[in-house]
């Protein structure tokens, strides 16, 4: 569940966002290029700081201008698939995921914000404790097995690779583990971007036009894969798209973004 209500003034655009993403649903931010969709996503992820308002993720406040809260992106527990993938070009596919798994543990201290009971009641599987992680691993069909037993900060490069491989398998790109991103096709790159974003077991998933650079056929194949993934990974998802048919196919709800405004019921 995501609650976002904030404003952000950019040189060419004033962003105004006010919407909720219910637990386990996919909300599509749909609108033309330059409407401010990516900026909204970046504010939720903590990569940009809004000027005012509040953002909460899973019942935890991650940003509040009033209370002076502004959690780092690291502490927000978001999975982010960037438009161009943002895959680390100097690392192999496997190491792209493995590096992510070598981050600190627990990933999101924000969960200690006093909203834990509420979260538990919502049955979020991605709570940042051992049990939650085991749940996440279970949903991934064995991916990340043993994660709960191994505190992440102590993972060696080898251990991280061993835990990363099941994620590549899950996305069907294990045979490309030793290739660098430049040697992957567009579709393979986006699968890797999904594997990397999911491997850290985020509480929510933010997708910034992940398939916009792909040809029509690959894109529709990726849509099918996304819907299949959605059966397993039940976190809230915000998908940014400028493609109306994509929005209708993948979204539980569509929120139109126009000239910086993404306001529910407007």
């Amino acid at each position: 569940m995501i609650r976002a209500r904030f404003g952000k003034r950019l040189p060419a655009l004033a962003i105004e966002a006010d919407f909720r993403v219910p637990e386990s649903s996919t909300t599509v931010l749909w609108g033309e290029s330059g409407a401010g969709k990516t900026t909204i996503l970046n504010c939720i992820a903590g990569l940009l700081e809004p000027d005012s308002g509040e953002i909460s993720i899973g019942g935890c406040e991650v940003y509040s201008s009033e209370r002076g809260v502004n959690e780092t992106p690291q502490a927000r527990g978001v999975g982010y698939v960037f438009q161009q993938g943002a895959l680390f070009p100097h690392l192999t596919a496997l190491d792209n995921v493995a590096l992510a798994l070598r981050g600190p543990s627990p990933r999101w201290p924000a969960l200690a914000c006093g909203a834990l009971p509420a979260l538990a009641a919502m049955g979020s599987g991605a709570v940042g404790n051992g049990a939650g992680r085991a749940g996440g691993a279970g949903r991934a069909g064995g991916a990340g097995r043993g994660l709960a037993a191994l505190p992440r900060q102590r993972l060696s490069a080898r251990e991280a690779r061993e835990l990363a491989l099941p994620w590549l398998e899950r996305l069907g790109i294990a045979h490309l583990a030793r290739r660098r991103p430049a040697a992957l096709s567009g579709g393979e790159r986006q699968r890797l971007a999904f594997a990397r974003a999911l491997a850290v077991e985020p509480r929510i998933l933010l997708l910034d036009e992940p398939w916009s650079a792909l040809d029509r056929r690959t894109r529709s194949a990726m849509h099918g894969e996304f819907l299949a993934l959605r059966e397993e990974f039940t976190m809230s998802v915000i998908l940014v798209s400028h493609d109306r048919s994509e929005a209708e196919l993948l979204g539980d709800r569509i929120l139109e973004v126009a000239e910086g405004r993404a306001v529910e019921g407007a």
Partner: protein
Amino acid sequence: MSPWQPVLLSLRVASIATLFTFAVGLFLARAMTRKKRALAGLWEALILMPMVLPPTILGYLLLLFFGKHGPAGIILDRLGSPVIFTWVAAVIASVVVSLPLMYQSCKAALRGVDAQYENAGRTLGLGERRIFRRITLPLAAPGIISGTVLSFARALGEFGATLMVAGNIPGRTQTIPLALYSAVEGGREAEARLLLGVTVALAFVLVLIVGYCERVTFAPAVPGRAAAAPGKAPRGSAAIAPAGAGSGAKAGQGRKGGRR
């Protein structure tokens, strides 16, 4: 005295100076690129000043600072190790003149790294230090290495400031440029030509290295070619990747044809 002595001394001075330049230049470049700082322009001007000041002026400034009556000189004198007219002074002069080059190269290299990679690291929960070490630094490496080589070359060729603070003492502070000057002045043709040859050869190698660094990109690799070099698979991944994956082992290094 062996005509090779200035060469060895120059290599020693330039190497030690480059170690310092590398550490300080990279640190300053990171500090200045990481966030907007108050008085950034002023700091930057201070760092870059040695690039525009005549070396002899710089040498004189260093002399005032490290000399017998200078603030640093007094302290060093009390500690019993004055640096003026020693090879250490030559190192200091080299560091000061080459630091702007290193700083500029590092800054350009760090700025050249697309922010999306660092942002991706942040959303993956990686700390800022790890992001710098594992993402930014490797991606900026070609520029940083070429900056290091340029700084080394600059240190090797340092003349004016070195002459002012270290003097021209054969066997002690006489580096290649000073020795060459003395040899030409004294009509020692053979010695001058030897130094000339050595310097040109060194400079050529350094320029080759810089050119090589500029060609290194993470451009698409040709999978077929990499299969011929299974020994160069990325560290530690051999045990995990399936047998057929070797084709991409060297993927992304893309040195050949990497210039775009």
